[in-house]
């Protein structure tokens, strides 16, 4: 780890100011991704601005058909929230399978989404459920938010404040964990929204999370697992690594997709 200055922000505006004042400031949320990166000396920010003191960023609220989760809400809070469990059980279930207990107690939804790891789980939830990412400057729909590997639509110094999830009619997330890291080798979120079915895939795309149009229209036609026995046209390039060939990942997209549809009931 290189040396840096540490600030504990008490509010979003406080954090904004600290970011402006720093020559190369970086936000730290749960630190579950950023701190390992620093320890490996792969990043050297001049300042770390800790959002841990911004109580306005933490918490879960349900308003009609919308579940709003503050950026600093931990994976454990989402997993254990009675509101989330009843409104979007798929989301609580997803959070409960991220990492291990220590990671879930510190890692946050805002940090996960800002980081946009191609194997992270939350991006599939955001894209699959059609969430809106709320920042200190604007609102960004999930379809516009995830722009590439570890890339998002966030401007430099833009802070995610909350994520708004519309409640689906039904939804399910099926994760096939990478045997080593237990991130998603393939994770598929299938959601039946009032506007139609959305299917988002994480872990597999060479450019990160993506939607599977062919599956969505097939499921719009008939919401059953057998509808997915079709060719997945227009799939983006898939990742290739020692854990999964593109062909294997493509197979898993179908298998996990079907399992998700079945589990939706």
């Amino acid at each position, binding site marked *: *780890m*290189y040396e840096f200055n540490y600030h504990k922000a008490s509010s979003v505006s406080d954090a904004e100011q600290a970011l402006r004042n720093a020559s190369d400031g970086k936000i730290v949320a749960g630190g579950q991704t950023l701190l390992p990166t620093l320890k*490996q*000396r792969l990043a050297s920010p001049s300042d770390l601005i800790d959002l841990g003191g911004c109580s306005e960023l933490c918490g879960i609220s349900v308003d009609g058909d919308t579940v709003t989760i503050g950026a600093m809400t931990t994976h454990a809070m989402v997993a254990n929230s009675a509101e989330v469990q009843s409104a979007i059980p798929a989301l609580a279930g997803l959070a409960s399978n991220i990492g291990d207990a220590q990671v879930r107690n510190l890692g946050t939804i805002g940090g996960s989404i800002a980081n946009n790891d191609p194997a992270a789980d939350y991006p599939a939830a955001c894209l699959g459920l059609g969430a809106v990412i709320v920042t200190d400057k604007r609102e960004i729909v999930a379809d516009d938010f995830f722009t590439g590997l570890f890339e998002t639509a966030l401007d430099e110094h833009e802070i995610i404040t909350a994520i708004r999830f519309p409640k689906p009619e039904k939804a399910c997330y099926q994760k*096939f964990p990478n*045997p*080593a*890291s237990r*991130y998603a080798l393939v994770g598929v979120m299938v959601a039946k929204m009032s506007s139609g079915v959305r299917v988002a895939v994480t872990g597999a795309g060479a450019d990160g999370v993506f939607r599977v149009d062919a599956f969505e229209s097939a499921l719009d036609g008939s919401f059953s697992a057998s509808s997915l026995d079709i060719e997945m046209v227009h799939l983006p390039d898939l990742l290739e*690594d*020692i*854990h*999964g*060939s593109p062909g*294997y990942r493509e*197979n*898993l997209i179908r*298998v996990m997709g079907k399992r998700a549809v079945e589990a939706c009931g």
Partner: protein
Amino acid sequence: MNDTGIGASVRRKEDFRFLTGQGTYTDDINRPGQTYGYILRSPVAHAKINGIDLAEAKAAPGVVAIFTGDDMQVGSIPCGWGVNNKDGSPMNEPPHPALAQGKVRHVGDQVAIVIAESYAEARAAAELIDVDYEELPAVADLATALDQSTLVHDEAPGNLCYDWEIGEEAQVNAIFESAHHVTSMDIVNNRLVPNAMEPRAAIGEYDSATGEYTLYTTSQNPHVIRLLMGAFVLQIPEHKLRVVAPDVGGGFGSKIFHYAEEAIVTWAAQKVRRPIKWRAERSESFLSDAHGRDHVTKAELALDQDGKFIGLRCYTKANMGAYLSTFSTCVPTYLHATLLAGVYTTPAIYCNVKAVFTNTVPVDAYRGAGRPEATYLLERLVDRAARETGMSQSEIRRKNFIPEDAFPYQTPVALQYDSGNYTATLDRAEELADVAGFQARRSEAASRGKLRGLGYSTYVEACGIAPSAVVGSLGARAGLFESANIRVHPTGSVTVYTGSHSHGQGHETTFAQLVSDSLGIPIENVDISHGDTNKVAFGMGTYGSRSLAVGGEAIMKALDKVITKSKKIAAHVLEADSADIEFKDGKFTVAGTDREMAFGDVALTAYVPHNFPHDELEPGLEEQAFYDPMNFTYPAGCHICEVEIDPDTGVVEVVAMTAMDDVGRVINPMIVEGQIHGGLAQGIGQALMEGARYDDDGQLLTGSYMDYCMPRADDLPDFKVGTTTTLCTHNSLGVKGCGEVGAIGSPPAVINAVVDALWDQGVRDIAMPATPNAVWNALNGAKTAMAAE
């Protein structure tokens, strides 16, 4: 039975300090004036070093000194075992420098040490070192290394370390010519990273007043390190070099070897006149701890018309990595090829081993060392032969087992097994695994869309690594005995100094049980001391499941001497002849009388010898013994694995794992069970999850837990374990060894189960690790092939 004696499941004495965080590991030790060392390692697999610019780094804050290979002109790190080529000439043994001498040969090779006031400063300064690497092509692939024009060492043409053989090739070939059936397989034993929980660490210290050096290190055998480093690398005589291996958090073989960092910190401590601590980061462990396994073998088994094995031949390439680590050379030869008879009566065996240099981390002994490789290829061949000849897995084994009445049994590959009953372990294993109910379980699984398979492995291994005479004749450059010293204190408590080293095995309990049992004293009155060359007279350390069979026997011999001396003391006090003194339950009695003396009183008298006849009886009660056994010991057993495969994803679930092992007499059943559990976890890890992978440039692709898959608790079923017992015939305890059996026996059982599950789908073989992707590929490949037919 004494409730803390032989056969009792005494809770581990050492666990209180481990579980409460009070162990003292090397990194817990801090010496006055200590500095911190950071080892700068090569980022490339193969390069010439054209220059190293240290100017900026030397000026960095906190830096005390920086040394490179130019500064450190010392002896080569020695290899402990010489192996001869088949023509009798010695193996190629290129130098193994502690700090690179003009060339780096694997990613992670040591280039410099930066010594600073803090670790962070050392590390920061290291980033300022400018090394001019002229990259060379890398030899990264074992299978093709011998054919490459690039040489890892100019001294080793063709990248060959040795070309060794055992057996008569022509004779075995003739048997194959006339065989009724031949089963052939190409078998890869995957490369593993040992991953001890405690990373390696070392502290070097020099006392200029006395000229004495001290090395604290994460070692399984401090005396061996003292010998190798002192005599060969740094030329420090034993009386000026103390090596301490305190609590060690797991070794699995990887902490047997003498590593460069030990020599670097010891040498540099004398230069800077301050202690230097180095501790590996986890990523460094991946790049600098010796890896394990890594063989490719062409193996063939010849059978007659009755299904009896009549010949076996194997051609193995074994990866040595970039340098010869301490025991690397004996693993594929004397610990592998000599095991190829297995539990079978195969009369003729030939094995050729080519040891190969590559631009990868050195490869050496890892839990089982050679024996898992032998067991794997043999049990895969036997499984396949059964399928090809229409025998059941049980039948082919029973037909070929060395019968119970054939012991001692001389194999055609040098070893002589002293005892065993392979049919008994197989019977018990089949019962415990409920093999009879398997077909019903398979049908039930099929109704859930799962493919269920059952796999066998029946193995024997050679452990209790010793006798000096045998290993010496095979090229070992050391003896392989063990020492023990029993110090009885005046109040009757006992300290045992053992040359074995405990790094998870529970010696502090098992060895104390031997003493408690033998002297009839409470186990609380016994402490086991190990791991310090200034306390323990000598020791060869712990590996090859040798601690109890060799170190424990040394303790028994020393205890015999203590009892003999105690009898003399009792005889003197009780005014009897020492031949008439009987010792039982901690009491010395004059035979046929009620005159007796407790062990504690004898001890006290030994140190308060007010009226000893000093010409006949010395004061004190302390005895030393060295034990060098007659033979290896031969644990054996049967492992049966049951898996369920999800054909959609290729995921293999181990649904049952049965291990029936004959480890000889069991001193502490709970500890034995724990050792077997650990071994099984590693074996299942090797079979399904673990595998070190290099790319063509020699970069380690599996350099962290993000990519190197370690088995976790939820990957494993509840193990069904049991023991059958035949006693070792050449040690007094009748013990064999249990530390490695789990890792030796289980991998082929798992893979045979996977193949069994997939056989009807057309899959004939699968390599380790059988990852979900690999299994899915195999199933799909077979599907495509079947469709094409």
